[in-house]
């Protein structure tokens, strides 16, 4: 199924400034893997050496929290993903 992914500013250096794209996948994990196939430089930005989503990233589905860093959350046609990093400045 086709999922829209919004790419945050801090990752756009790795996507030739592409801000949104579409990927195919049934779960968050599959969609992020598809995203990496489109933009290979995102791999080290999104995942650690063990293949886990980096702990400072949060994934949102249709602008709602997933309460999980697990990548197995199921998606449906038309869903939209946002990747938000933790920001700390004050």
């Amino acid at each position, binding site marked *: 199924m086709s999922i829209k992914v919004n790419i945050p*500013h*801090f990752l756009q250096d790795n996507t030739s400034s592409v801000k949104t794209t579409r990927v195919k996948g049934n779960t968050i994990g599959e969609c992020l893997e598809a995203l990496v196939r489109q933009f290979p430089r995102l791999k080290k930005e999104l995942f650690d050496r063990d293949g886990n989503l980096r*702990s*400072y990233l*949060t994934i*949102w589905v249709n*602008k*709602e*929290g997933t*309460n999980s*860093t697990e990548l197995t959350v199921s998606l449906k046609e038309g869903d939209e993903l*946002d990747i*938000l*990093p*933790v*920001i*700390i*400045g*004050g």
Partner: protein
Amino acid sequence: MATLTPDERERYDRQIMIKGLGEAGQKKLKRAKVFIAGAGGLGSAVSLYLTAAGAGTIRIVDHDKVELSNLNRQVLHRDEDIGQPKVDPAATRMSQINPNVKIETNQVTITETNIAQLVAGFDLIIDALDNLPTRFLLNKTAIEKNIPLFHGAINGFEGRAMTIIPGQTACLACIYHEAMPDGKFPVIGVTPAIIGCIQATEVIKYITGLGELLINRLLVYDGLSMNFTEFKVRKDPKCRYCAHLASEGKAD
């Protein structure tokens, strides 16, 4: 019950005119005791506007001294303040804006040891910090002491804000787990000004009981695209700080 002097009635005339705020709301502001963690970019905006609005008591805490590189965004401080504890020019500027506000300062590092004492007797806590570990400490204390927490954070042209009511809403740890490794963050001064003013707005609404709070909603500001996006936050049933409160309030 706080009373308003003729001078205060004139000073706050334009906001007393706001439907629903009135003199009763102004008296609530006057009675309020506000704790601000941080006298940097966010702390500048939130402290100045809450001072102008007539919050009764403001305690502002920051361990740092003013540096030249602060001055692009930390409008509490001036060139002549470089080298001074940030809380000193903060108190001076705030008093100049509104001498009716009782201002308390502490030049200390917020730690596990002193935080309970620092916030004791205060009605609400404002997160104007620049690091995640101390934010989590504020978050933990707010939950333990049942004190509302007003979160803000910025990076570059981006900002976030959310209001946390312990026992009722999601908390900071329901969203965030760890900070990005790079500790030095880029920022343009207008970003903390915007987010700090959103925090101040939330505080004023909370104190006066007006409007709808930014609860269970993370507001994400993108200055480059000039848009605000709301993300719906769910209370994490596994949250290390607030999961035990799950049965005491409604998450949504």
